[in-house]
């Protein structure tokens, strides 16, 4: 465990059983997250990008230990999250919080905004008056006047306002790490920008570390320092946001960037870089999981999962096109 990382996972794996029949026997496994290792340094924003169904949300829930992994390890701030005592886990949970994607399902319809945010504080034994003061201050900080909105119920708020409440709820325990699972995907473009900017301000104010999950490359590029590209439960490429935007190596990452709608006419695509849907994660392809849609697939790709190789400092790619084996021939961009 390198001392520099706030969050570190090694070989994280989660396969969900698919049960069917009268006896509910396991028929197959959905390989949601397979051998994911990542490092998040204090103060940085790690973006995780990938198509829907690639295991991003499962990864978020694994990190927060809302879902128990099958294998692998999670280290947070020097502690093995999977091995701590329950009492210590409760303390650890203060330091890592989650903001959910769906602003409608993520707030209890029976709690006022103020109660929803204060709940976490009360769980950790805060006095009611203190919890209320802190909640009101935080609601003001995320842009909701506590006198106007504090006593309201979620259904009286817009999507953007609800997402501000979610952010306040996640921040009320003063966490070190915030995992944001598609925090702006359900919002209108104009509201997206407001919420993103709020998140960036809060990060600077409170010295936060973000794990930012999104399927939207433009959003990821805007907020992230480093980016992790996932495909069918595995990491295919990781590097700084600039490196990936300028010189992505993995054919999947290149296709992803090429397909993102862009305002820049030079980056507009002439033909779709990849077609079809990702294969079913129940029976992923052998070897490299992208090989079925890859223009550069070789016989070797079907044999084993390509290991991550460094193509530059801090830039890793899991593809046989790179590294010693093939001499590092680059596919044309």
């Amino acid at each position: 465990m390198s001392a520099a990382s706030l969050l570190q996972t090694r070989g994280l794996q989660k396969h969900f059983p698919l049960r069917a029949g009268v006896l509910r026997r396991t028929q197959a496994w959905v390989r949601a997250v397979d051998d994911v290792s990542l490092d998040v340094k204090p103060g940085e924003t790690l973006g995780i990008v990938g198509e829907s169904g690639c295991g991003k949300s499962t990864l978020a829930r694994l990190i927060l230990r809302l879902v128990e992994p099958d294998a692998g390890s999670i280290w947070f701030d020097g502690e093995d999250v999977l091995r701590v005592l329950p009492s210590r886990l409760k303390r650890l949970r203060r330091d890592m919080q989650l903001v959910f994607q769906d602003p409608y399902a993520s707030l209890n319809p029976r709690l006022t905004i103020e109660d929803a945010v204060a709940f976490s504080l009360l769980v950790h034994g805060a006095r009611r008056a203190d919890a209320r003061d802190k909640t009101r201050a935080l609601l003001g900080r995320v842009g909701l006047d506590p006198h106007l909105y504090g006593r309201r119920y979620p259904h009286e708020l817009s999507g953007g306002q609800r997402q501000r409440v979610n952010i306040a709820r996640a921040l009320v325990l003063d966490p070190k790490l915030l995992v944001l699972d598609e925090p702006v995907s359900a919002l209108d473009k104009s509201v997206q920008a407001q919420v993103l900017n709020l998140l960036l301000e809060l990060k600077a104010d409170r010295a936060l570390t973000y794990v930012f999950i999104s399927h939207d490359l433009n959003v990821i590029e805007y907020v992230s320092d480093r980016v992790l590209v996932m495909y069918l439960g595995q990491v295919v490429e990781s590097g700084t946001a600039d490196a990936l935007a300028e010189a992505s190596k993995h054919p999947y990452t290149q296709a992803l960037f090429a397909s993102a709608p862009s305002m820049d006419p030079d980056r507009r695509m002439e033909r779709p870089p990849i077609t079809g849907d990702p294969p079913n994660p129940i029976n992923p392809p052998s070897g490299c999981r992208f090989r079925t849609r890859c223009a550069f697939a070789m016989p070797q790709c079907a044999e084993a999962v390509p290991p991550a190789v460094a193509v530059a400092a801090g830039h890793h790619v899991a593809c046989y096109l790179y590294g010693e084996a093939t001499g590092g021939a680059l596919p044309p961009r």
Partner: protein
Amino acid sequence: MSVIALPQSPSTVAGAPMSYWRTVAWRLSQDRATLVAGTLLLLIALSALAAPWIAPHDPSAGAIRLRLAPVGTPSHVLGTDEQGRDMLSRLLWGGRMTLIAGLTPVVVAFVVGTVLGVIAGYAGGLMNTLIMRTMDIFYAFPAVLLAIAVSGALGPGLLNTLISLSIVFVPRVVRVAESATVQVKGLEYVAAAKASGASVWQILRHHLLANILGPVLVFASTQVSLSIILAAGLSFLGLGVTPPAAEWGLMLNTLRQSIYVNAVVPALPGLAIFVTSMAFNLVSDGLRDAMEIRT
């Protein structure tokens, strides 16, 4: 649609928004049909409660010479039954029994069923299978048959009626509570509470129960009228309340041979059962509409 008939919430007028239950109460107070049915229920309940003081005669004291007196007889306003007992007094006293036999099983089922349903839904896995499959066994029997079978095995009497009817209603409530629990459990605010370190008890109390009690309560309230009819039915069959105690179903049974002598008097307990169960149905309908608030 009630949503059109009833405003969502008066909060826009009052300024400060109201809590969920206060909004429900406010919406109920705007619903005239429910208010009328509710008032009727209140009157029936009060008259049953006050039977010892307002009943003009002893409900079990008969007069051989004054049997099956017609409605309107002086000193017997609603006539007398086949043993010459005052019908008004017997209807008032009988209401006590019928309401106890109708309401208690539903209250028991609401409490027991919610607890079992929440445990089954929240725990999931083996516990869920164990509870739900056991409930399915009871659920497989038609309600009337199950009530008759259990009452028949336990023997007649009020307590046994309550037990057998509770057994009929618990599995129904468990089903509703379980499916509501499973649905709420999967929502993100429960995950958020878990992520903030809340204990299972804190999650159940503040996030789960608050969101499932409403639907379960509405469902239970729809079962009251059925329970009243089943209780009366058991008494009618001689499996419920035993003579000479007054109970509407039992009164129907003992009066049924007299229907050719005097058709009106034997119909009175049936009318009482009909009006009471109808009023319960209307109130539960109104409750369902009032609780249908957009969230």
